[in-house]
């Protein structure tokens, strides 16, 4: 791990007599440590080169946030005249690998088992314990981050106020009851549940939602002729549906591409059929309908939203460049943060490496657009954000303690030798 493992015992271990001891012996093995680290390097290497084909988010998901990962050998690809686009290479053989969760879990177990089997807690080894404790904390921190952290974005034009952020990668089908002028009731179905054939019912919805069709990525166009060349008529008979066609595509795989999911749902309320509706992230406009109980509804497919009890107004976005060049020097968003207990609001500047932390959210200056009039803030909610910092401190402390112990031991020995030589 860190080169600070204990020396192997001078006498061979007695043959283990119980399964538990056998298991502990195997799990605490240094060979296992070396194997796991080697496997981790291979996984990281393959994940890195696979980023050519996959986006960073997909690489993290396939290689690191699973127990079993895979690497696809690919061939082909190139410009396809029939679709007028460059097609990616096609996978033809899959190599299965241990995923990040497997490697992390085994490394954790290996480290703990090694301490149980070989290490004895003493002052002389306290530094090593601290170092290993810091590493355990780091591994656990990454696990909690993977499971609990949420990222979203807040896109603000100058002068605009928002009290929610949206996940650009995850969509939700939102049914919003707008019957009450002062209060909207949002019932949102996550994208993962929008599978063709699914029937979704909820106590707050006075109708059943039947998923007619869903595409994780599809482009829309206004219907200009009969279906063909990949363009299909949308099986929706309400509002915009009959007027558009869609072109199903593979999900976006690089940072330059965007997946625009689209869904057609049929809404039924007992005997009444409200028709079939198209909702797409390409069309960020909600559609209106009413139910037989007199309620007014809006329907939209949008990025997964997280509403806050505070709002942010973008007063100005500044983009500074180095004089005489187009090289960016600084991006700053000048915002006003308004919370229920502070109606006037606080003026705050968010700029590179200086995020805003508020109510468990961290707002980073992420991107900008529209000739520097739109700022995109990355909003991160990660309950375990402190763990990596704590683990680094613990490891650093451990290193200091262990090397300090070694230094004083060495100095003490030298003093003894000098005294012995003098006498």
């Amino acid at each position, binding site marked *: 791990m860190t080169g600070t493992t204990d020396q192997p015992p001078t006498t061979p271990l007695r043959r283990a007599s119980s399964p538990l001891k056998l298991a502990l012996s195997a799990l605490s093995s240094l060979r296992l440590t070396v194997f796991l680290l080697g496997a981790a390097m291979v996984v990281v290497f393959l994940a890195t080169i696979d980023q050519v084909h996959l986006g960073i988010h997909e690489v993290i998901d396939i290689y690191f946030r699973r127990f079993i990962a895979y690497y696809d050998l690919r061939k082909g690809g190139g410009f396809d005249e029939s679709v007028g686009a460059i097609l990616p290479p096609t996978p033809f053989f899959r190599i299965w690998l241990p995923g990040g969760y497997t490697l992390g879990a085994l490394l954790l177990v290996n480290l703990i088992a090694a301490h149980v089997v070989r290490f004895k807690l003493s002052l002389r080894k306290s530094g090593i314990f601290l170092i290993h404790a810091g590493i355990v904390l780091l591994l656990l921190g990454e696990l909690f981050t993977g499971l609990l952290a949420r990222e979203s974005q807040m896109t603000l034009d100058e002068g605009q106020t928002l009290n929610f952020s949206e996940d650009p990668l995850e969509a939700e089908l939102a049914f919003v009851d707008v019957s009450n002028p002062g209060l*909207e009731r949002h019932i949102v179905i996550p994208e993962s549940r929008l599978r063709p054939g699914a029937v979704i019912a909820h106590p707050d919805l006075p109708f059943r939602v039947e998923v007619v069709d869903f595409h994780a990525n599809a482009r829309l166009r206004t219907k200009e002729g009969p279906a063909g060349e990949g363009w299909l008529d949308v099986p929706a008979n309400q509002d*915009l549906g009959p007027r558009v066609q869609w072109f199903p595509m593979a999900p976006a795989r690089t940072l330059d591409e965007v997946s625009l999911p689209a869904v057609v749902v049929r809404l039924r309320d007992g005997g009444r059929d409200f028709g079939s509706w198209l909702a797409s992230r390409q*069309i960020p406009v909600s559609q209106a309908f009413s139910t037989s109980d007199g309620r007014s509804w809006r329907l939209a497919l949008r990025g997964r939203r997280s509403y806050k009890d505070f709002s942010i107004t973008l007063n100005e976005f500044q983009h500074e460049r180095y004089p005489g060049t187009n090289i960016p020097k600084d991006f700053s968003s000048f915002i006003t943060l308004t919370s229920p207990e502070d109606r006037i609001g606080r003026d705050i500047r968010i700029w590179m490496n200086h995020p805003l932390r508020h109510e468990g959210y961290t707002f980073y200056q992420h991107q900008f657009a529209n000739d520097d009039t739109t700022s995109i803030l990355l909003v991160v909610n990660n309950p375990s954000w402190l763990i990596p910092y704590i683990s680094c401190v613990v490891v650093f402390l451990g290193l200091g303690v262990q090397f300090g112990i070694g230094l004083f031991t060495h100095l003490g020995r030298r003093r003894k030798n000098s005294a012995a030589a003098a006498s």
Partner: protein
Amino acid sequence: MCVGMAAIFAASCSQEEPIRVFEVVVPETGPRDLMSESAPPATAAAAAGTIAASQDGSADATSQASRQIRWESPDGWQTRPLTQFINRGYYLLPGPPEARPELTISAYPGAAGGLDANINRWRGQLGLEPLDREALAAELETIEVSGMELVLCDFTGNAPDGAPSRTIGAVIEFPDETWFFKLTGNPDVLTVSHPTFDAFLRTLQLVGGGESATAAATTQPSAYGQDAAPPAPAIQPAIGEAPTVRYQVPQGWSESPPGGMRAASFQIDAGDDFEVDVSLVRLGGAGAGDAMNVNLWREQLGLATMSDEQASAALELLQIGRHEVRIFDQASDDPIIQGTRRARILAALFDHSGTTWVLRARGADEHVTAERERFLSFLESLELP
């Protein structure tokens, strides 16, 4: 620790994602918009009346609009300041930085020249030939949205600079007012924007008369030659009726029916598809001030604006007939007429019976210059009520 980890994995991996339900408080002022702001954007409150365009582009404070239409602006549509001609809504849509589609929303009193004329004008801007009524009817589509009849059109051609361009438009004709929704841009980019624009049109809702539907128009004028339906602001009938004037029509000037705020309207054929447009307009009261009009015309010519003192000093004072006239006579630095000719505005401001009048000629630099003498002689012949 292992038990804890196993529990976390089990909790996170096994369950289907739940359906979330939550409530959002909506501010009571302003329109609700489910897809963009949670609170309505801070709009510049209208001062006493909006600054709306007179037909020739002079700035003039007038009264409020008569009808309110609300809509849902999609997320990603960037709001731009209103102008004299784009007086209800102005958006830049998502697209390549150098080719973002533009949506303009305008409303004008009456028929604003008529549906056919406006549609053919849009066609002309794309280099397309005008169509007669029958041919035009075959090109148009009508849909109903919230009780309103929208006439849709979709044309592709070439912009004056030769670049491919597409216009997708919607016109709503009310008995006393006409609304124009015009989306313009590169044809390939509009293919992506079209469904969203279509969905946007379906969010239109007629709210009713009274308040202005949009933020106050700014004093920023439209660029020279920018499209507008024959602009005429919403004005009170007493002011809006075309005043009766007498004059002698100079040789070569073709008179066309006045309308809106134009008391007189002429075109001069300068050949090679160029023409000079001349208009006589009565502004309300003292108008918006000479400096404002000067800067308005300078902006139309692509020139930098001036301070009030500089703008006033830029006017030439002449006594013509019974009128003490302030003359504005400037040309653009760049060839902004069809990309080949510099533009010139020759305008005369004068006061009569407590109101300000403007006689303005605009066209290619050399053509307007050639008309200066006839312009001044027309001014001399003018008899106002």
